[in-house]
């Protein structure tokens, strides 16, 4: 995995240590949390919440905490460390934009979903045990089972989602999403449906172009369209598929920038918008507006000085697109009223069904 500087994750850790220095001593194994997280993410098929979950599992396996309290405390610290790392990564992702390598690290919200899920899992179990070793064994057993389930989630999503693809359909896909790719490939190769796909470019990462080449490789007719051409192309489109980095409590989604405006245009033209996500991406957040997300607040939200912005506009040098990526948000929030249905491994859900699932999980 790419790091701008090898010392940076350690820097994150260093502040962590300083913060904790006067309280309980840190478990030495904790130092590996970020490295471990990055190692898991190197697998291109690994989704962020699952990677987060695996880091926790790994940590439990090597934890030497002598008491229950310390164990739970260090576990909490691991969570914070990973969260910090993911925020750091999402910054780093932007600065490396030029290399055009896709970086799966950007998913701050997805990491949060994984951390929440694991914390809840621990909370559910921790009260039942007095012996630390028993608790650890149960947690390891349980998480092995959860990971097993999570591994098959994408397949089940593909089965659910492919039902909605019909012959001669024209589908608009926003940028690159592994789950959406799975659905389309399942519909084309397993169910032998014939359909066409438009993929938005997905600036500034241009991940959409990757999606186009992947779809072409699996023999699905497709074409890339500019992000700004969505309104133009939508008349020809039957339905819209978008992925999700996180599905929030009210059934809205947090996804790559541009999803919200596509959903708005789709609503205006009465086209169905289907969000495709695995259930482990459900996260307990309730964003009230676009800026109410626990991720980086980009510069664009606060105005820069006139001089700076004009120099930005005129700067056509090499760093131009980097600047653009740095000063723009990477995700936006799409409220539930603009989504028709959510296609998940739990089956098809209406946006209002999401809160039900989350209540069951966290009650």
């Amino acid at each position: 995995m790419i790091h701008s500087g090898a010392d940076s994750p350690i820097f994150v850790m260093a502040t962590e240590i300083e913060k904790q220095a006067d309280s309980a001593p840190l478990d030495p194994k904790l130092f590996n949390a970020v490295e471990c997280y990055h190692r898991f993410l190197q697998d291109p098929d690994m989704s962020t919440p699952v990677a987060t979950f695996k880091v926790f599992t790994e940590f439990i396996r090597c934890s030497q905490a002598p008491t229950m309290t310390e164990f739970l405390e260090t576990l909490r610290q691991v969570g914070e460390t990973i969260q910090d790392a993911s925020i750091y990564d999402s910054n780093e992702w932007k600065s490396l934009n030029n290399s055009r390598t896709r970086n799966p690290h950007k998913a701050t919200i997805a990491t949060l979903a994984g951390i929440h899920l694991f914390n809840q899992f621990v909370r559910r179990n921790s009260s039942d045990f007095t012996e630390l070793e028993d608790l650890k064994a149960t947690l390891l057993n349980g998480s092995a089972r959860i990971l097993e389930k999570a591994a098959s989630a994408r397949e089940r999503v593909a089965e659910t989602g492919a039902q909605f693809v019909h012959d001669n359909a024209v589908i608009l896909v926003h940028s690159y999403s592994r789950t959406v790719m799975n659905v389309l490939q399942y519909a084309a190769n397993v169910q032998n449906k014939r359909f066409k796909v438009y993929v938005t470019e997905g600036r500034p990462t241009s991940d959409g172009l990757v999606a186009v080449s992947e779809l072409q490789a699996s023999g699905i007719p497709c074409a890339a369209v500019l992000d700004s051409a969505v309104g133009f192309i939508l008349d020809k489109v039957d339905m819209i598929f978008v992925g999700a980095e996180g599905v929030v409590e009210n059934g809205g989604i947090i996804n790559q920038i541009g999803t919200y405006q596509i959903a708005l245009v789709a609503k205006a033209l009465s086209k169905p918008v289907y969000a495709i996500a695995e259930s482990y991406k459900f996260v307990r957040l309730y964003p009230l507006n676009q800026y109410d997300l626990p991720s980086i607040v980009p510069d664009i939200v606060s105005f820069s000085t006139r001089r700076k912005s004009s120099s930005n506009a005129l700067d056509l040098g090499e760093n131009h697109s980097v600047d653009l990526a740095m000063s723009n948000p990477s995700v936006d929030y799409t409220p539930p009223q603009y989504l028709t249905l959510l296609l998940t491994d739990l089956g098809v859900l209406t946006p209002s069904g999401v809160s039900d699932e989350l209540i069951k999980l966290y009650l």
Partner: protein
Amino acid sequence: MVLSKALEAHVESFISRLKRRQIVGSYEVAKETAIILRQVVSTTRWSDATVLIQIIKDLGRRLSAAQPKELAVGNIVRRVLKIIKEVVRGELETDDIMNSGTSEESDDGFSDDDEEDNEEDSDREFKSILAQDTNDNADHTNDAIPARPKLQTESSMFNLLVDQHSDNVDYSAKSYGMKPLIIQEINEEIIADLETVYKGIADQALEHIHANEVIMTIGYSRTVKDFLTKAALKRNFQVIVAETSPTLQGQEMAAALAAVGIETTVITDSAVYAVMSRVNKVVIGAHAVLANGGLVAVTGSQMVAAAAKHHATPVLVCTALYKLSPLFPYDIDLFNVCVTPDQVLSFSEGTLIDKADVQNPYYDFVAPEFVNLFVHNLGSAPPSYVYRLINDNYDSEDTIL
């Protein structure tokens, strides 16, 4: 062949009637499906529940393939499957086995509806004598609307975190005495439930229809007719019925409503928008309700709903729970059917028929955003709540038969 000869003949006749659309309407279809399935449980040989579930699933697949537009078939099959699984898991009181001897009678032949009723009554009386009437389902006979089903806590998301052991029920365990219990549950939960749906819905009429209101409806629906009739016992209101061309079911409906003394007006379908500004409420029936809250209803319903939306007139849909289907409208034409165009343009006008393409779709799909409230036999729910009713009524693994 797993089914007995007589039963196989019954199934075949049902299938051919379904195919020829000689049996239409979700109530008749649901009822016959339930009776057939009960006979399958009682007359076929099965040693454990796995075999039974497989038999029911196979038969269910055959029946719903015969007429995919009659979604009630699949719904009843899913209900029966859920009942079997509940019985096996032992979720129902086992002491009910004691008094289930009476329901064994159904084994002989094809009992008609009257027999069903008697059987049900005797069953219930017997139970009350034994003072074992602890089963909630007996409440259906009371006037009170039973409490809303509790929030189900079983779903795969939840199971991610809790222990899985409870989930792996061994359905293949031999269990003597399951058969009468399953039959009894089918009788009570499904067949007896079917008898009371109209009443359950009509009992809520006074909550929704107020004095001097103008109600619009379309098509002939027994549910809506009973609903309005019940309201007319107490309240004075006016009903406008769209004639529902080309079947003219609306005229039939108007005649039925006028017969019970409701002030009724018939309008042509094209006048729906014109009179909508005077209407206080739209009450329509449904052929099937899909999992997203959309519904399949008589042709013209979408037009009425769209006109109502324009005027912000509330749209009420009266539907029994057995019409709720866990399927989604993957494609809005999927659940429609085009019937003979004879009523649109008679075949006697051969010269014209040659030149024009005449279509006669039987149903309409009404999207959930056009509906304000579903009134069902256990209460009422907005479209966004329908998924929950479906989770309560069916097992999610049975969605695809």
